[in-house]
């Protein structure tokens, strides 16, 4: 076989290889899958760090979690809310005269917690207004007040409060983005 023929054979092999190369199965799916696995590894490592930090805090972490569960419970717990408000109102020397929770508020798309409204009408001495407002602000349950109306009626005042309370439903908080309504 002459040298030229050898070179031609070599070229034929190379050209054949180059032509056949694109017909080989694509590696993209495997590469993509591997990248996805690498992301999973990174995410899991972050989870491990997060869990270990919580574990290191121990009882302190668990106590804080319980406080948060009280503030933002997993269900509306209207009965618990009414009981607490009633207790606090009474403690300030006021009397709950009227009030009712409204229906669930319309949630914004992507919101991960639920919001309800509640209206309160409280009557009592003027000296009870400030403690009442302070007590609501420091309630175990998180309440946000939208409006307060204080009206003098004779020797007493009538306080009307529009507020909101919240719940974070189970299964709606893992790996989610938290967005208010």
């Amino acid at each position, binding site marked *: *076989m002459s040298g030229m023929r*050898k070179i031609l*054979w*070599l070229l034929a*092999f*190379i050209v054949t*290889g180059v032509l056949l*190369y694109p017909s*080989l199965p694509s*590696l993209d799916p*495997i*590469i993509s899958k*591997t990248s996805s*696995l*690498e992301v*999973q*590894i990174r995410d*899991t*490592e972050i*989870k*491990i760090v*997060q*869990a*270990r*930090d*919580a*574990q290191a805090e121990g009882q302190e*972490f668990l106590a*804080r*979690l319980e*406080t*948060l*569960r009280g*503030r*933002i419970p997993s269900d509306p717990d209207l009965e618990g809310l009414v009981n607490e408000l009633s207790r606090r109102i009474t403690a300030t020397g006021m009397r709950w005269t009227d009030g009712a929770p409204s229906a669930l508020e319309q949630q914004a798309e992507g919101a*991960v*917690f639920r*919001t309800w409204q509640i209206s309160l009408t409280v009557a009592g001495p003027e000296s009870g*207004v*400030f403690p009442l*407002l*302070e007590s609501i*602000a420091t309630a175990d349950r*998180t309440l*946000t*007040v*939208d*409006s*307060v*109306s*204080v*009206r*003098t009626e004779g020797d007493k005042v009538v306080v009307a409060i529009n507020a909101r309370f*919240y719940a*974070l439903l189970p299964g*709606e*908080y*893992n*790996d989610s983005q*938290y967005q208010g309504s």
Partner: protein
Amino acid sequence: MPEKYVGICIDGSRATMVNTIDSLATSYATVDLGDVGESVKVLIKNVKQRKKSPPIRIVVSAPTSMVKSMDVTAKATASYDDFQELLYTALPVDRDTTSVAGMVYNPEDMVGDKVCPGAAASLATSVLSEVYNAMGSLRCEVVSMPLVFAAHNGVWLGIQQGIASLSLLTNGRIVAYRQLRLGGLSSVVSHLLGSATNVKAIQTRVEQALVTVNSTDTQASTEVGRYMRMLTTEISQTIDFWRRQGEVIENDGMILAYGPGAISPLLDDALHEAGFVRALCSAIDRQLVNVASAQRLDSYPAFLAAVSVGKNMPYVSFLNPNYQALKRAQRRKLKIVSTIAGTLAVLVSLGLFVVKPIVDVKRKESATKTSLADVEGRFAPLQDMYLLSEESLARATVNDEVLADQPNWAAIYQQLMLSTPPTATIVQITATSSEGVVIVNIAAALPGGRYEDMSAWLTRLSEISGATSAWTRGFNERQGKVTVDLTVNFAVSQPATDEVSR
């Protein structure tokens, strides 16, 4: 370390082999299967040759071979072609059918144009080819019969199967060589054979007649005796011729004999009748002490071939006529092998070019899967704590978010009360929070109050921490009763309650 040598003598269809350790013969074997190729193959069947073993020297005596002394100069040996040309010039042989070889007795003396003695030999190429073919892949060198006798002076008579020859060696050189017209022992067999066909039986009868005195096979004995006498006559004529030529004959009248016929007492008788004396070469005989005496003279050529291995090379050796064909075959084989190897190399390269990325990607995928399994294994016992951590994060986030714009209602209310003039009576305070701004509307009675009193009240309101503006929406004085409607805006700057951290 002692070296082992092998020498073979080809005589017609008969092959004889002698093994030596250094210059001492250790074994002797002879085979005659009627075909030289077959005989050689059987003879060398058990010969083992290692990479460093010396070649096997084969001495060939054939009817057509010729040997002649010649002069050689350094120029003539400058190349093998030049030397071959000199050999063909010295010998009247057909170049197409005959191969040539030669030797220079003292190559170290060859300087410039100085003439040195040498010898040329010829051999039928067909015989040579047959011998080389029979030797197969064994390394060997084929030389012509009398050349191995160098250094053993005298008149050497060879009585072999194929030929009978006479060589004259003087001063360690071959001076003259002649194949006798009578031929070898095969001519005796031919005479006895007549119309019979069993050659082997006749050969056996001749062999018996050669060694038996007063043989009962008178026909064979008579024929051998006649052959010996005729041989002696031709020897006498030849030696006379050499004398007339002026050749120096050492120990003139003494004959050194070798070959299967040399042992015959009938030869002794014939030589004696012609005035010759049978002599023995004691130097060679001593080295053949391990060979049976009946075979000793027959073993001379093979033995001398063995002990002269490698001497006077390369000229003394006949080139293998198949050498070019062998080389061509080797080159062809090498090309095929190199082409296959090259093709494989290209295929492997292409394979690596195509396969390596796949292997790398697969390997990385496998390693990543292993890493993931490891990480998941470490995470498994922490999963519950992680879920609690996530829950805590979620609730804290919601809590912080909803309280972010929450005003401190109690503080606002307290400040409003503190800024209220003592004479004023609050009728109603309405406060609403929207988008970080708290708008407070105050409706109050200000008995006996004047506009300046309201203005002073507004000033105090505007000085409350967080208040951004304060203004009046109404100042009414009716029947001595003054009522005012005021508005204060607060900017929500801080949450009303302590933040619950995560």
